[in-house]
């Protein structure tokens, strides 16, 4: 084949104050799976948005199969066979899957939508590539993995030959990732070209034929996956070797900080979110909770924190009964909580960095003079100190939180919660959606706290994170603790199986 499927030539794109893409050249061959990796903010998404016509380059050309194309809008991209699967699903929850897929390009019979014709075409696509998609179901009732497939079918329905997938695995379980990769290979076999954006190098090595590495808005290099390895890619990505090997020392068992005895919790519909959960957390210990999203891990933290009221069981913090206490009390008793969703529960986005760092401790000495007067000077000082400690960018305490990148927002939350000097830290997905540089800082901080003798409960959907940080690992499945293990006795595959209930502890032994 003479032409490349996609060729980007000298693409430059600047936003006020930032060069998002600096003279980028990218070639994607017909029928290959091409990964684009880079940290958050490296310019991957901007580049793909330009290719898809959502944004426009200041300079440079887009060439599709040898023809120069002006990507004025997504319509043009679609008409050239390019389809994009966004990181955040673009689906209407109340529509059926079929309605979502045909939306904007409805088959018609006279003036009406011919949904039957749509269903037929969807079934044909679904069978051909092995999507197994329930076209008649209401979209909102389907699991995340299925939603993503619906997104891919949506793109194929529009006749896309070149698929752009933006961080497709971020929300998937290990099993769902496997299934997705199977579909991607099918697509490739049948002549489709796949552009795959990610920052997970392991996946790149597994699925991609070639990989383009981006760093700070520029291309840092292109490699055949067969001729490179993860450590080279990560060096290219970061510009230095990343230290994620945490070098934990064996924790010595000391006092018990937190204890749960037979805790149960029902959700609004009366379904058991937690079912007779018992656990102990010692000082100087990181207790990892592994599980597929929605199996009670977050409910567990929220029950301990007092956000959700338990229906039975007892929770003790250093011997004191804290069952069903309000979060404000939990704070005073010496706990901290990093919530799973920083934007909704961790920050007031309209507030400044300094105010966010004072949230929940506005009555503390360093933030207020008595009841009536806030201590703004103290707030600024304290936030400057945290900003430099966590390397938060931009380093202006007065900047509104929404103006910061996700990673820096997360650092605000982590800094605030750790700075309170809690004896027990509850951390829900502390590194979700942040890039590897931020991950490194957060890991370092969590391990420092552990070394100081704090107890940490770590809930994460990143198994590598659980394995890297935890002293012990508990596996949760449908509200119960179904297994206990430790990083030196298990691996990601096995944990993945335990999380989905495919193997139980008994079978394992």
């Amino acid at each position: 084949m003479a032409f490349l499927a996609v060729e980007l030539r000298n693409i430059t794109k600047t936003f006020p104050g930032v060069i998002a893409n600096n003279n980028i050249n990218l070639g994607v061959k017909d029928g290959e799976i091409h990964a684009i990796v880079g940290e958050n903010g490296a310019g991957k998404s901007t580049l793909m948005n330009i290719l898809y016509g959502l944004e426009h380059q200041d300079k440079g050309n887009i060439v599709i199969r040898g023809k120069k194309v002006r990507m004025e809008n997504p319509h043009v991209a679609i008409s050239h066979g390019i389809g994009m699967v966004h990181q955040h699903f673009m689906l209407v929850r109340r529509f059926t899957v079929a309605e979502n897929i045909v939306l904007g390009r409805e088959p018609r019979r006279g003036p009406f939508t011919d949904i039957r014709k749509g269903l037929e075409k969807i079934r044909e696509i679904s069978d051909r590539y092995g999507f197994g998609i329930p076209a008649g179901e209401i979209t909102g009732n389907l699991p995340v993995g299925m939603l993503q497939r619906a997104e891919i079918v949506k793109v194929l329905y529009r006749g896309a030959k070149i698929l752009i997938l933006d961080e497709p695995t971020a929300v998937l379980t290990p099993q769902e990732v496997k299934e997705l990769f199977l579909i991607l290979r099918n697509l490739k076999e049948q002549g489709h070209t796949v552009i795959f954006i990610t920052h997970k190098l392991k996946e790149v090595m597994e699925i991609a034929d070639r990989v383009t590495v981006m760093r700070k808005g520029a291309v840092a290099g292109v490699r055949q996956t067969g001729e490179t390895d993860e450590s080279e890619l990560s060096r290219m990505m970061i510009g230095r070797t990343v230290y994620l090997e945490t070098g934990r020392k064996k924790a010595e068992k000391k006092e018990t900080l937190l204890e749960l005895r037979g805790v149960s919790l029902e959700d609004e519909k009366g379904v058991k979110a937690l079912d007779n959960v018992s656990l102990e957390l010692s000082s100087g210990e990181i207790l990892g909770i592994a599980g597929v999203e929605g199996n009670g891990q977050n409910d567990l933290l929220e029950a301990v924190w007092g956000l959700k009221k338990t229906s039975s069981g007892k929770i003790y913090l250093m011997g004191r009964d804290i069952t069903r206490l309000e979060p404000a009390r939990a704070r005073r008793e010496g706990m901290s909580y990093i919530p799973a969703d920083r934007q909704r529960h961790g920050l007031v986005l309209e507030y400044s960095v300094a105010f966010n760092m004072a949230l929940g401790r506005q009555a503390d000495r360093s933030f207020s003079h008595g009841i009536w007067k806030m201590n703004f000077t103290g707030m600024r000082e304290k936030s400057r100190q945290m900003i430099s400690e966590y390397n938060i960018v931009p380093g202006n305490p007065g900047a509104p939180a929404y103006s910061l990148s996700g990673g820096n927002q997360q650092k605000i939350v982590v800094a605030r919660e750790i700075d309170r000097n809690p004896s027990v830290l509850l951390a829900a997905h502390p590194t979700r959606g942040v890039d590897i540089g931020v991950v490194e800082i957060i890991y370092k901080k969590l391990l420092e706290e552990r070394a100081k003798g704090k107890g940490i409960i770590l809930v994460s959907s990143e198994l590598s994170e659980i394995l890297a940080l935890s002293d012990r690992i508990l596996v949760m499945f449908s509200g119960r603790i179904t297994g206990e293990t430790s990083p030196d006795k298990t691996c990601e595959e096995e944990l993945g199986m335990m999380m989905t209930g495919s193997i139980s502890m008994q079978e394992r032994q």
Partner: protein
Amino acid sequence: MTDFVLNILLQTVRISVPYILAAVGGVFSESSGVINIGLEGIMLNGAFCSVVGTYYLGNPWLGLIAGVTGGIITSVIHAVSCIRYKVNHIVSGVAINIFAVGITKFFLILVFGSSSNSARIIPLKLITFPVIGGISPVIVITVFIVVLAHVILFKTPFGLRLRACGENPAAADSLGINVWLMRYSGVAISGALAGLAGAWLAMQQSQFTSNMSSGRGFIALAAMIFGKWTPLGATGAALIFGLAESIQIHVQTMGVNIPSQFIQSIPYLLTIIVLSGLIGRSEPPAAVGKPYPEELSL
């Protein structure tokens, strides 16, 4: 006895027509993602325009068209402020309601030299049906509109796209659907229907009286919610509200004394009950009231 029942039913329909029209309008507006609490004011402007139109053009049909046009124009003001300028939809709607009371009174004095009512206008000719007798053509139009609204919303590509804009505008946008255009259409349709509702009120009384919509726009909103944001549901709810009023009037003429205020509060009580989830759940479109594109949170 059959006469009595027929009377109640016909009166129910007559009372319900403005509720039905405005409520179905509301369904279109809110399905596209724009809250339209301004139905009340749109109705009032529609009523006034239809009277002025009939008065000067000498033909009630042209007056009807003038009413619809007035409704559309009023609704487009609401649409521009909500869609283009991202004003809070409730605030804009309240402003429309207050604005309509003022401007109709202003022109009432200017055109008819009275602050309370207009000159009388020629009413529409009734269509005579067997058994039920003479009926305003607007009732026939209303039936037609309800069916058409259902078909458009649920059976055509336009309806699918309109609802997508009210549920997840970003998704619609990513598929090349013009979210703003859809939302303008939704609000304009609500303006046309609420304007027609106002015209009906004026035609019923053969004149415009100051503030004659007197809360009917809000009852229509209640009917829309009670009907779970669907044309057929809203129509059903509007008929229930109309029936309650009709019965109250008949009961009162028979000398039984139920306070009319009690009957008037029924639509709102029912709406609160529905919203609180006691009789099934009534959920608004997911993105209703949210501007698009939303401010980026980085």
